[in-house]
């Protein structure tokens, strides 16, 4: 194991998969000559050349569709959205063509494509540039959605996504790109299965479910709660869809209390689905209502303090945990 950044981890995953499989290529805005808007694809053009690392015009709908068409004949495109806020102009391609093709064609055409890029609010980018899209895409049948929180998961999930024979969205996070973590050495094949959550911290009093940018909040809060004798079990979903129900239910059966901390909007957010499944399947295990901490149901303001007030944060999580624990 060595310590690398989330950005480096993604870069390694890309390089390894492009190296391994001649059908894999990377396409998107500024991914080649510019080395990626966030430098995730740094060095790849030099190493693999313009046939495999392809710059596009600002045409998300067009190159997302191009990738899906190429996938129909067996290529395995990795399509980078500079951010998933810009995937909204390609929404029809991602939610209609990619996930429906296999059904509509009677099983003749599966679409082995990966859509990846930073998702969710970064820092003061304003309403149009801060979209957290996980709940939107997870609601679409035929798509898979993962949300790595660590360099190790970023590498392992992206590699699994590229090898998956279905459309997979890898929702990264701009604010995590420079974060560091331990990752297996390059010579060790690292594949993190889609649909498997990870218990980041064992605890007995409350289950805190998190993913992506909210994992660090949860871990921070857990440490803080420890001092107040509240033992929180932290579950990093890693994948939103498929959802690892077993990991969630096992933990809740132990703690009987749940808080979900998510980065999307509250209305029909990821936490709502998880809450539904928990109460449906293990209703009697719940000693308190499931609570959620998410963004407020407000378009993102630019001002830093107002943005902070809209985002999920440690204070809100602490309050929610105490509420379920002392309920």
């Amino acid at each position, binding site marked *: 194991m060595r310590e690398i950044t989330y950005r480096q981890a993604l870069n390694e995953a890309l390089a390894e998969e492009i190296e391994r499989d001649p059908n894999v*290529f990377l396409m998107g805005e500024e991914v080649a000559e510019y080395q990626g808007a966030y430098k995730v694809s740094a060095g790849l053009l030099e190493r693999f050349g313009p*046939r495999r690392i392809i710059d*596009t*015009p600002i*045409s998300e*709908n*067009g*190159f*997302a*569709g*191009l*990738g*899906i*068409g*190429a*996938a*129909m*004949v*067996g*290529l395995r495109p990795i399509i980078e959205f500079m951010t998933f806020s810009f995937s909204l102009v390609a929404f*029809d*391609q991602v939610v*209609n*063509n990619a996930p429906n*093709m*296999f*059904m*509509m*064609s*009677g*099983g*003749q*055409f*599966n679409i*082995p494509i990966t859509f990846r890029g930073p998702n969710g609010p970064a820092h003061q980018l304003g309403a149009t540039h801060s979209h957290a899209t996980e709940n939107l895409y997870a609601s679409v*049948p*035929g798509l*898979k959605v993962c949300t790595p929180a660590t360099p190790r998961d970023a590498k392992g999930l992206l590699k699994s996504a590229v090898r998956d*024979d*279905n459309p997979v969205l890898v929702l990264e996070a701009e604010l995590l790109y420079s974060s560091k973590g331990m990752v297996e050495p390059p010579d060790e094949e690292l594949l993190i299965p889609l*649909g498997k959550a990870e218990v980041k911290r064992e605890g007995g009093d409350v289950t805190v479910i998190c993913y992506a940018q909210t994992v660090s909040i949860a871990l921070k809060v857990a440490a803080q709660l420890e001092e107040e004798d509240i033992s929180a079990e932290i579950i990093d979903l890693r994948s939103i869809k*498929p959802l*690892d*129900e077993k990991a969630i239910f096992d933990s809740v059966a132990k703690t009987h209390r749940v808080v979900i901390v998510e980065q999307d909007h509250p209305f029909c957010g990821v936490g709502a689905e998880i809450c539904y499944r928990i109460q449906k399947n293990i209703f009697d295990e719940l000693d308190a209502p499931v609570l959620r901490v998410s963004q407020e149901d407000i378009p993102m303001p630019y001002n830093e303090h107002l943005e902070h007030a809209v985002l999920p944060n440690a204070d809100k999580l602490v309050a929610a945990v105490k509420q379920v624990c002392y309920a």
Partner: protein
Amino acid sequence: MQPVEQRDEVEMLSLMLLIRRFEERASQQYQAQKIGGFCHLYIGQEAVVAGAIAAVRPDDYVITAYRDHGHALARGTSVNACMAELFGKETGCSRGLGGSMHFFDKRHNMYGGHAIVAAHVPLGVGLAFAIKYRGEDRVTLCFFGDGAINQGSFHEALNLAALYRLPIIFICENNLFAMGTSVKRSTSLKQIVDRAEGYDIPGEIVDGMNFREVRDKVADVAESIRKESHPAFLEVRTYRYRGHSMSDPASYRTKDELEKYRLDDPIIRLRAQLTREGKLTNEQFDQLDKRAKEAVLASVKFAEESAELPVEKLHDYVYFNGAMS
């Protein structure tokens, strides 16, 4: 000049007859409620797909919109598989899961059948991208209607195809209407083909009621593309005799207009050409037509007798490699 592989014209005439009879029967079966959903007939436009397919090879890629029965039949999908698809049966070309608007046939390089206007044009560009990526000797035929050219995806796709110089022929089947909207009410241009200039893509106008003209133009372009990869645009002028879909009375156009085009019928025209040249007798033509009608009739029986996909199997069509947890 001559097409790459000139398919026998009589054979192509019988294909056009097969498409015509298939559509007539589909219309009747739709009214008998054996067919559900939306159903868009190709009657009147047969020479477009027949001519284009006659000019290319079986391993070339074909993709089109939802008015797709003719394209599948032209590609070689069996009339049985086509009719069974309309009936929603497991023996259909999309196992009864796609329906009229979503005909797919991998074996015959038919990549659909797509129902969101123009959303398949980027897919066609992707097929062409794969050809160039792999250095294959193929061409992609991407068909779409006149109504598709005002969608953003059309625009982005054409620019990408031109930028990457991909081997694709954009075939705009200009039948003058998008539902009830005539081209002049949808498009700020005297002629559609001019839009290709905005991407520096060579474009030509083709008489879509004339099988030979379509075939030869597509053949020329395909040959040029095989020599050196590039996109091309053909505005093929044609006409649909029926309404937009089964529910459209098409009251937005005059009987006279329709009659004018009927007189120019692509089947009558090719038949006349062949007869004039002594390549086809009336008896032979009647034989072809009889065979087409019989094949279509048989396909209805086949479709009726076919089974539907069992509900338990539906989950196998959500994700490749079995259902998800």
